[in-house]
């Protein structure tokens, strides 16, 4: 069975380590905050200028001046800091954020990512994604393994305009956990009930099946 969005988020959360400063993108990455393992502390960075993002407010706490990068109303956690956009991106570009989790349209075997633009279709902009992928050392990309038409999103070479070059080293999809190195995808974990051949079928780029490939667990 393919993983649900929540299960993908749960698997990503297992990559968190105590003391990590983490930036979570919009969509599945946002859900990761719900599954921080017990006994560890992480601090969420929101690129509009908040380090230490707390939960959504209660109705009486809603404040127009307190939002996250997804423009949702949020709270500041105890011990949070608020700063301007240049400072926020100094943290990101200077490599001070320990982990970035973001979604994508396509990833290729050289670690290139396309996540912001579909020519003639979608005119939205890259927001902070190009800064995040250029600045972070440790990036996890979450997405479905294939699109609605069953076409692989893990490619030999991205077909859409890029967000960043050679920057993605780990992808967690609804089918698998894959590492990218030396110009290839390396299959490390299969989702429960998903076979290696199914993953091979849905991976267009060069996929190397690790001898130690295992079934994903969530504990």
């Amino acid at each position, binding site marked *: 069975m393919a993983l649900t969005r929540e299960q993908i988020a749960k698997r990503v959360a297992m990559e968190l380590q105590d003391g990590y400063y983490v930036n979570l993108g919009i969509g599945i990455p946002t859900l990761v905050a719900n599954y921080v393992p017990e006994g560890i502390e992480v601090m969420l960075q929101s690129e509009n200028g908040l380090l230490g993002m707390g939960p959504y*407010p209660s109705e009486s706490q809603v404040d127009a001046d307190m939002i996250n990068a997804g423009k*949702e109303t949020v709270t500041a956690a105890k011990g949070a800091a*608020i700063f301007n956009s240049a400072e926020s991106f100094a943290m990101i570009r200077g490599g001070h954020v320990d982990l970035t989790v973001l979604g994508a349209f396509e990833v290729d075997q050289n670690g290139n990512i396309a996540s912001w633009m579909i020519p003639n279709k979608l005119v*939205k902009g890259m927001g902070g994604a190009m800064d995040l992928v250029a*600045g972070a050392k440790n990036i996890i990309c979450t997405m479905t393994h294939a699109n609605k038409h069953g076409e692989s999103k893990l490619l030999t070479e991205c077909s859409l305009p890029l967000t960043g070059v050679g920057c993605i080293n780990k992808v967690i999809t609804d089918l698998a956990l894959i590492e990218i190195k030396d110009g290839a995808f390396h299959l490390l974990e299969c989702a429960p009930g998903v076979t290696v051949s199914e993953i091979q079928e849905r991976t267009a780029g060069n996929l190397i099946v690790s001898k130690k490939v295992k079934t994903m667990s969530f504990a």
Partner: protein
Amino acid sequence: MAGFDKVVASYDEAMAGLEDGMTVIAGGFGLCGIPEGLIAQIKCQGTRDLTVVSNNCGVDGFGLGVLLEDQQISKMVASYVGENALFEQQLLSGELEVELTPQGTLAEKMRAGGAGIPAFYTATGVGTPVAEGKETRNINGRDYLLEPSITGDFAIVKAWKADRYGNCIYRHTAMNFNPMAATAGQITVLEVEEIVELGELEPSQIHTPGIYIDRVIKGEFEKRIEKITTQAATL
């Protein structure tokens, strides 16, 4: 008005000198921390052919989005414009030019512009459409793009409290791009919720010193929220 007193009495005075074809840098992130009254004044003045530099372009009917209604903006420099149907329509029809700029690069362009730095190198955007036509330089084994900084004929900024010298503080995440925008205008106009007495703001807690500010006006703010998310809603 004398000495360092920057307070003006009317929006006409606040935006006096804004002419067709000028560049306006605006603070704000989405609808958070936007100078609502100054935007309304630009709409009212009917100034056209503007280049507007701001992270976003408001939404349909609010924020900078209202300047699209009478086609006052000819070029927009922004990082994300996905919340605005009229924007997309004018872009596709060719009435509006857009220069999509990575968010961190945009903040740094304003900061550098205000600090007298004409351009800077950054790894952001290397190998992407953002790099087209820009100088790339390898420094210590990594490629970087040369990004020119930005200054504006006007900067319009929203703060929480200011004194009459223009020293100001921002509230929560309504700070965002405002401090950088404030430094990058030939004429910087500050719209605030409250004008306080000199000395009331603690000098070491000032976010933007008054030297960057040319005019201060007290505004009334609707503070519309783009996405109200609450704990109850997530259960």
